C-alpha cells in the first residue's frame, strides 16, 4: 500500500483492481471487501489497496503473520476486526485482498480465527 495520505476530499479507503485498475472509494473498509468479492466473482480480478486512512491500520505492524496482525488490531475494535481493516493492514506487507482472504481461509480452517459477527474476526 502506498504511504500517500488521502487528500481532504477523498474517501478514507481506496483500492483498485489489479488487472483493469478499476478504482473503489469507500467510507468503510468492509465495503472494499464487498467490492473485491464482486470483482472476483464477475471478472476473477484481485484488488490491491491504494490507501486506508484508519488509526488501526496506521498502528498495525509492518511484519508478522496474520494471527499476530489480527491480535494487534483487536485492541482498536470492540467485537472483532473488520476483515477490510485486516486486509488493509496486511497490504503494508505487500498482500492483496485476495492474498489476505486466502490466508484467512487457511488460518480459519486450522481453528486459528473466529467470526463473532459477519465479516469481523478475532484470533486465538
Amino acid at each position: 500500500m502506498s504511504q500517500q495520505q488521502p487528500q481532504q476530499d477523498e474517501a478514507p479507503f481506496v483500492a483498485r483492481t489489479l488487472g483493469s485498475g478499476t478504482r473503489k472509494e469507500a467510507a468503510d473498509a468492509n465495503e472494499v471487501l464487498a467490492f473485491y468479492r464482486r470483482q472476483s466473482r464477475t471478472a476473477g480480478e484481485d484488488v490491491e489497496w491504494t490507501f486506508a486512512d484508519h488509526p488501526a491500520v496506521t498502528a498495525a505492524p509492518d511484519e508478522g503473520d496474520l494471527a499476530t496482525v489480527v491480535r494487534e488490531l483487536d485492541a482498536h475494535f470492540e467485537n472483532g476486526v473488520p476483515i477490510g481493516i485486516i486486509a488493509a493492514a496486511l497490504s503494508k506487507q505487500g498482500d492483496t485482498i485476495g492474498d489476505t482472504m486466502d490466508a484467512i481461509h487457511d488460518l480459519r480452517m486450522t481453528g486459528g480465527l473466529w467470526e463473532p459477527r459477519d465479516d469481523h474476526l478475532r484470533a486465538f
Partner: protein
Amino acid sequence: MTRWNTSTDEVEAVSPDITDETNALPARYFTDPAVHEMEKEKIFGRYWMYAGHANAVTEPGDYFTRTIGDKQVIVVRDHDDEVRVFFNVCAHRGSKMVEDTPMTDPGNMGRIRCPYHLWTYDLDGDLTSTPKSFEEAGLNPDLEDEDVCEFDACDNGLKEVTSDTIGPFVFLNFQDDPMPLEEQAGQLKDDLEALPLGEYEHATRIVSEVECNWKTFAGNYSECDHCQANHQDWITDIELRDSELEVHDYHWILHYTHAEDVEDEMRIHDEHEAQFHYFWPNFTVNMYGTADGYGTYIIDPIDEGRFQLVADYYFRDGEMSEEEKGFVQTSRQLQEEDFELCERQYAGLKSGALAQAQLGPNEHTLHRLHRLAQEAYEA
C-alpha cells in the same frame, strides 16, 4: 409537466403515450430499496437474461457461474455439446456446489460434485452417484437397508434453468414456462444471428461499479440527446442529426452515422454506422462501426443505488493489438463520461425533490424502458 414532491403534485403510472405529462417512471422506482427487491422477481426473475458467451465453454465440462440477484447458476457444456444452465444448488440439501467462476476464467469438470456430501451429477444434471451412506441405513436403528429407497437419477437431479441462445449469446429464464426467447428478442435474434459474432474471441472484461440505479444508466445508454454536450471527443466523428432510434417491443437500436466512411474491415456489420442494441432488461450489444469487433454490457444491479457494468470486448484475436487497446480506452472514456452524468442524475433523484420526470419527444427509447419496467411491476 414535471411533477415535484409537493402536496399538490401526484405521480401516475407511465402513460403509453409519450406526449402525455406522465410519460416517465416515478422517481421512487429508482431509489426505493423495496423496488430493488421487487425487481429481483418481477424483472430479473421473469425475463430472458444474458448468461454469458458460448465461446467461453467450447469443450464438454467447461463451465462458468453467473450470479443474478440472489440466484447463481452454472453454465456448462454437456457431453452432447449442448450448453445447459443449472442452479448452483445441490439437490440433496441445497448447498452451493461450485465456487464462483467468472466467464473470463472458466473451469472444467467431468461431473458436477457437491463438496458437502459428495452427491455427484452428470453434465446433463442427472444424479449419478451418492456415497454409500445414502444407500444403507446402518446408523438408523429404525430402518433396514432394504427399506432404503434408491434415489431416482432424474427426480433427484439438478434444477435446470430454461436457456436458449442468440448466436453465441446464452440466455436464461428463471420461469418454468417462459415466453420463448425468440418472442422476447423479436427481430434482434435475426439481426444478431446474421452476423459472425461467434467468430470473435473474448479479449477483455472491465467491471465498473457505479453509484446509481441500474435503470439510470440504462436510460442514459438509450438516448444520445446528451452526447453533444457530454461526449465531445466521440461526436466529432458522428452525424448526430442523422441518427435513428428504432424501438421494438423488448429491444431498441440506436443507429449513429459516421461523419466519414469507415473501411469495411473496421466494421462487423454492413451499415456505415455504429449500432447499439439494447435488449430488455439489462443487456446490450455494441457494434461501434470503427473496430473489427463488438462489445457487450451487462447492467447488473447491486442494490437500488448501485450497479455493476460488466463490459466485455470481442475481437478477431483474443490478444488485442495496440489499436484495439486504444479503441477499448476510447470506449472506457465514454463509460466514465456517462458514469459521471448518471451519478449526478442519481444524486438529484435521491434528494427526493422530484416525483416524476418529464421525457422529451426524442426519448422514445427511454419511454419504452420505463414502460417495460412499469409493466413488469404491475404484472
